[in-house]
């Protein structure tokens, strides 16, 4: 299912509506200055997050890097047990934005990692990572079998894969798609609701 269609399907289901603490509610009750507004006269507009109406435009990675990231994301976090996978949640597109806005060191980890993944794929299977078979794609993830260490791994591919595994999971489980599909009351790290601090004057 295309991601836009997936979101529209979720939005159409009444039982899966946006939680009570929508942006509009927060502006009227929780946000700085909100309590001073005459609530009786304030219109109660329903505001949607942008992902409900639009898709992120990838801008940072090259087309080849991005195709590898999409393939990798799908393998790392496929749809499971009725919950959306990384592609349903737009995780690769979100990571393109996030990594593009990140410090140079983190950008390098991703760029070098994706380039290495594509290079190894070509060398061993004659195709880019997005185009090899599922078994071949999994074979290249062998560095993920190594134990976790506090210090980042010296091998650039291992470092990238371990970062990506965490980031893809977080980008997926913190998405609106995931929160809406999950049972209500999920924790903060699973698309749930948390106590947000507004900027302090």
């Amino acid at each position, binding site marked *: 299912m295309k991601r836009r269609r997936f979101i529209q399907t979720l939005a159409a289901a009444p039982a899966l509506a946006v939680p009570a603490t929508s942006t509009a509610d927060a502006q009227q009750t929780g946000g700085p200055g909100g309590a001073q507004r005459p609530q009786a006269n304030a219109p109660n507009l329903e505001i949607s997050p942008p992902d409900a109406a639009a898709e992120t435009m990838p801008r940072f990675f090259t087309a080849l890097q991005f195709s590898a990231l999409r393939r990798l994301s799908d393998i790392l976090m496929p749809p499971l047990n009725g919950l959306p996978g990384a592609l349903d949640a737009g995780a690769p597109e979100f990571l393109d934005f996030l990594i593009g806005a990140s410090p140079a060191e983190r950008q390098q980890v991703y760029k070098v990692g994706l380039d290495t993944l594509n290079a190894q794929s070509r060398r061993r299977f004659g195709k880019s990572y997005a185009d090899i078979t599922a078994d071949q794609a999994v074979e290249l993830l062998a560095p*993920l079998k190594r134990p*976790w260490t506090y210090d980042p791994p010296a091998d650039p591919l291992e470092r990238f894969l371990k970062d990506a595994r965490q980031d893809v999971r977080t980008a997926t489980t913190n998405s609106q798609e995931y*929160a809406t599909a999950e049972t209500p009351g999920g924790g903060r790290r699973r698309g749930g*609701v948390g106590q947000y601090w507004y900027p302090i004057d």
Partner: protein
Amino acid sequence: MINTEYDVLIIGSGASGGMAAYTLTQKGVKCLLLEAGPSIDFQRQRGLKPVYELPYRGFGKPGRLSHVLQANEFNANQWVDEAEAPYTHDPREPYNWVRVRMIGGKSLFWARMSYRLSDYEFKAKDHDGFGDNWPISYADLAPFYDRVEPIFRVSGRKEGLAQLPDGNFVDDTSPDAGALKRFGAAGQSRGMTVTKIRRSLGDGQFASSYNLLLPPAQATGNLTIVSNAVVREITTDKKTGLANGVNFVDRQSGRELHARAKVIVLGASCLESTRILLNSKIANSSGVLGRYLHDQFYISNGVIAIVPEAKDGKAPRGLMGGAGYVPRFRNMKTKEKNFLRGYAFDIYTGGTPDAKYYPSWGEELNRMIESHRGASIGTTIMGEVLPRYENHVRLDPKVRDAWGIPVLNFQCRYTDNEFNMAKDAVTTISEVCAEAGFEVLNGNDKMFPPGYSIHELGTCRMGANPKTSVLNKWNQCHDVKNLFVVDGSSFVTGGTQNPTLTIMSLSMRASEYLAEQLRKGDL
């Protein structure tokens, strides 16, 4: 124009400054309290939001608060903005300085762990020959612990341990989880004791100076609080050398102001207090102001293990749930070969390990995590860091904050004593886990950078000798007798215990002494 001279001007509204205000105002002392941050209206300043509504989907703005590993996108605005209030260090030797500027300070957000120090800390040099003793003993501070604990409603269980003196507790009679008992039994031969976590209950919502210290202080009619007051320097009388007030900047407008007082109490937090003294060019005839910076090294999830009987949601009732605390057990009756002092650790049961610890992905990873859901044992290791002269802060001659005030430069690193201790901790805890029948999933002996624990201590230490210390045994400055420093900067050595309870007890003790000196006309 207002030109009041207060009896005492207190800098900082957190645990130490708040306790000074609480103690002094009840003795009839007129106090002015300056806080660098704003007063928070929690109803307006916080609100519930789903994580997907956050601009960065919970990752946080890249590059923001890179030193604050505790920060996330929900709470990012509660920490000091490092762009506005920077500090510097060698990039190869990071220091994670975690700060809060608002009425109540870090006491709004602390973990509330409330442990007493013992003479293993106050008289540490007597025990192992390293460093210096405090100029006070446990017996000097015990009466003040006795009085601070009821204010904060510290829960705990009396254990009768010399290294972790019992307190004036709200009795914790909850049963220990079966997994904790098994761990305790396995660790007994190594001298380990699993105690209850000792925690300040406060009023439930807060256990802070914000709700427990400042309201009763203000109710006396003796306390004036000014927020958004960023202190530039303490001013002194050129003839007497005594402190006579404070120059500060209004945080929002940049307006420069001066407040007058007979006595100054610094409780701005360990390193902010030292920074103010360095910027004031006072209190450093010893040359040790800024020196002996120490804390406790922290390793989160130093050892993660799985309780086999709890896998797949099959834990029998009472096996999992709750946490314990194992106080220091090294270098007490025996002597370790490759490190001095010791470590403590929290041990918590019933969690689920993070995905990063599994050598897998996709469906298989999910299966593994689900199998271990609620079945894990986790540990946070807290090791004593030796106070060393070499570890210090100084003013950076080139960098200033948003108000033009010189910032701190950090020169701080851990040494083999800490590294060896961390290795011993992970090895020993792993062995005990195995003996208890747990499956060790991961062991990590790499600690976070210095500062991470938010237990920065020293840099303005107490001592009997004015040539080697900044403060006397009453937290009173050797050089400037109407200046007191009542926060963690006064520590001589820190042990493994969370320091806030000790900071507040020292502040209460110093403030009572100060009030008595004022009454007698000696200040």
